[in-house]
């Protein structure tokens, strides 16, 4: 037969569990806006009853666990999308800067090129004296300066992006270290049979950060330790064991711009497809392609103008020279210093001795309309076979493109690359917003709900207290009987 004292115990358990539930509700409210926080819930169960005669008597309530409400499947979906989002966002950051370099308005290279062709036309109109030649020199210098500057800007962007990637690689490694440390604490806690809710939330935040950088998939073991696999190449970057450091460490070869794994002795480059690092790498390779195209343009302009000006490098002074190295690129193209110091070296006519002959200058100004082979490596060969020294004209390649087209192509490729990334980013943002809303609906704290809970627990607490005061009255009754 249960005594009053054992009922005291039942009431006490009720008080305790309700006060714990109140504590949990208030913890939820306090963390309503904490990053990565998952709402918690007290799991109660009936205490073990004891048998008395032919029935069982309940002994109150036990607190089983404080549970963290989290959907792990949703987590992994989100991580995957964070990686996709990271790809686009990182690419966007780089490509937006390249877009500024390739201006298309009257400050762009196209305008400088048009001005250059017009200057040659001016020279054709007044080939006497130095006036027309000075105009050509200035316009050509504007063009080469702009080329050099653009090349420079791309190089800076290239270097900045590499540094950014390197810092992200470091971030990945330091995140993995932090995650391993947290996993270790979680492991130790769970060995004691306790759920390390808050530590898991913290680890979740770190995993969110990591997933934006590289595409990861995560597996859990029974002690809530995790194994992280980088999904694009299937490389295990963190094992379950919280004591051994990861076998593969992400690293970057700055000289080549390749990212890969370092197993302590060797570096193996890999092809990452998703995540911020992959996005930066992809944008970097695109930027390098733009630079190649710009180099092609510099090469074409310099080669073709020089060719017509000097009848295939046989006579006269070329207007473009190479500042260093052996090939015309956007970086090395420059105005011939000889011409810069003596503009009368610019040949305007067929022979270059007659004052009023501007036919060569006219032929050069008409180069802007000449279609040339798309493959610039064949240009010199093409010129050798298709240049007429008497008319100073180049037979156009009907399947080719003009020099203006080359720049237009670069700008539209820059634009459409960025445009695609922008569109992808918008889609990803919408997708992530939906997933996060779902996650929030599962793990988020609702103030209304918690308030209702608080009231409920307060009432229950009062009810349990009432039980105790009732028991006290019963106790009094019993004691008074004795008196």
């Amino acid at each position, binding site marked *: 037969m249960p005594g009053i004292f054992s009922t005291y115990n039942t009431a006490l358990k009720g008080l305790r569990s309700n006060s714990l539930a109140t504590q949990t509700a208030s913890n939820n409210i306090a963390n*309503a806006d904490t990053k990565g926080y998952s709402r918690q819930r007290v799991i109660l169960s009936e205490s073990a009853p004891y048998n008395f005669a032919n029935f069982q008597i309940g002994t109150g309530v036990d607190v089983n666990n404080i549970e963290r409400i989290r959907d792990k499947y949703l987590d992994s979906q989100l991580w995957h999308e964070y990686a996709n989002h990271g790809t686009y966002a990182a690419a966007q950051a780089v490509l937006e800067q390249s877009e500024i370099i390739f201006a298309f308005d009257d400050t762009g290279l196209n305008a400088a090129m048009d001005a250059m062709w*017009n200057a040659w036309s001016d020279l054709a109109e007044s080939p006497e*004296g130095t006036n027309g030649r000075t105009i050509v020199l200035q316009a050509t210098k504007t063009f080469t300066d702009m080329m050099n500057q653009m090349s420079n800007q791309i190089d800076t962007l290239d270097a900045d992006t590499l540094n950014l990637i390197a810092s992200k690689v470091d971030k990945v490694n330091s995140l993995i270290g932090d995650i391993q440390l947290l996993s270790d604490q979680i492991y130790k806690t769970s060995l004691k049979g306790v759920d390390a809710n808050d530590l898991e939330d913290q680890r979740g935040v770190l995993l969110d950060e990591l997933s934006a950088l590289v595409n990861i998939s995560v597996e859990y073991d029974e002690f809530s330790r995790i194994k992280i696999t980088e999904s694009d190449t299937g490389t295990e970057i963190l094992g379950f064991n919280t004591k051994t450091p990861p076998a593969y460490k992400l690293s970057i070869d700055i000289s080549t711009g390749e990212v890969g794994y370092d197993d302590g002795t060797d570096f193996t480059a890999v092809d990452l497809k998703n995540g911020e690092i992959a996005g930066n790498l992809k944008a970097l390779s695109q930027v390098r392609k733009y630079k190649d195209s710009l180099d092609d343009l510099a090469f074409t302009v310099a080669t073709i103008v020089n060719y017509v000006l000097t009848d295939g490098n046989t006579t006269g002074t070329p207007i473009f020279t190479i500042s260093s190295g052996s090939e015309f690129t956007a970086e090395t193209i420059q105005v011939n210093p000889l011409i810069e110091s003596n503009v009368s070296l610019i040949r305007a006519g067929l022979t270059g001795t*007659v004052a009023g002959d*501007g036919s060569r200058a006219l032929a050069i100004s008409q180069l802007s309309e000449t279609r040339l082979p798309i493959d610039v490596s064949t240009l010199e060969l093409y010129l050798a076979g298709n240049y007429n020294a008497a008319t100073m004209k180049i037979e156009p390649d009907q399947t080719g493109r003009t020099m203006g087209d080359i720049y237009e192509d670069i700008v539209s490729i820059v*634009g459409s690359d960025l445009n695609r990334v922008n569109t992808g980013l918008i889609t990803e943002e919408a997708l992530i917003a939906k997933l996060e809303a779902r996650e929030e*609906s599962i793990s988020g704290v609702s103030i209304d709900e918690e308030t209702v809970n608080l009231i409920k627990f307060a009432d229950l607490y009062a009810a349990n207290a009432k039980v105790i005061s009732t028991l006290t009255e019963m106790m009094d009754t019993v004691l008074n009987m004795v008196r």
Partner: protein
Amino acid sequence: MRVTNKSLTRNFLTNLNRNLQAMQKTQNHLSSFKEISRPSDDPFQVSRIMSLNSSISKNDKYLSNIKHSIGWLDATDDALQGVVGAVQRAQELTMKAANGTYSETELYSIREEIIQLTEEIAQFGNTSYEGRYLFAGYDTINAPFDVDGTNTLVYSSGSSDTGIIYTEISPGVTVGININSERFFNPSNSTVSISDTLHEIYNALGTPTPANLDTRIEELNQHLDGYLSLLSEVGAKVNRMEAAKEKNETDTLNLTELLSSIEDIDIAEKSIEYKSMTAVYEATLSAGAYILQPTLLDYL
């Protein structure tokens, strides 16, 4: 689905941000007056804008070439008119002399006038435009003609210059705009040049009974025809230039219009768009005030 306070705020912020982004875009349009300010706005149209701008810039250059050529051709025309006048006068004088009723003194004065006419033709031949000799071929900085000690029209450099100065008036279309010294010297491209004829007349008039003046008159007639055909050639070129100018201006207008239709904003449309966006934004803000405030706590 559970709806939490955070999801409400987050939703609200996302929507608000979306409105703001749209507003910023329209604001950008309104302040730049351009529909497209970055290549990624519309890569295809950007490449059209660039080629249109390039065409407009080239067209402007063609227009300046055309205007310059018209000036050049007008000056050529004036000079050739003068030459025609001089040749006609020479013909008149020669005819007079051929009548054979003139005394030696009178013939002498006619001869003097022929010398004057020779010098006049040389002067016309040395007409310059913007500092360039019109009839000099390529050698535009040196006067092409001279009258030597025997009162003969000669090339000052000793030989003719056959250079033709071309100018580009539309893509790939070049027109030679000058009459070179050879054609000026011998417009009818015959065995005798104007110089030969005038010199022969000058020589003949030195004798009491000038001989072969009829042949000279015939030659002068030929030269006159030659100069007149040069004049009509120049006139035709002026007409061609005028037509090219008109076409050029129409083209530029069309190109500019096309460019404007691609890159410029419709200010009325954008302003109205912006107004309605502002209204939506304000509505979102005030709706936010209703959505975000209430919790159960407000009613306890």
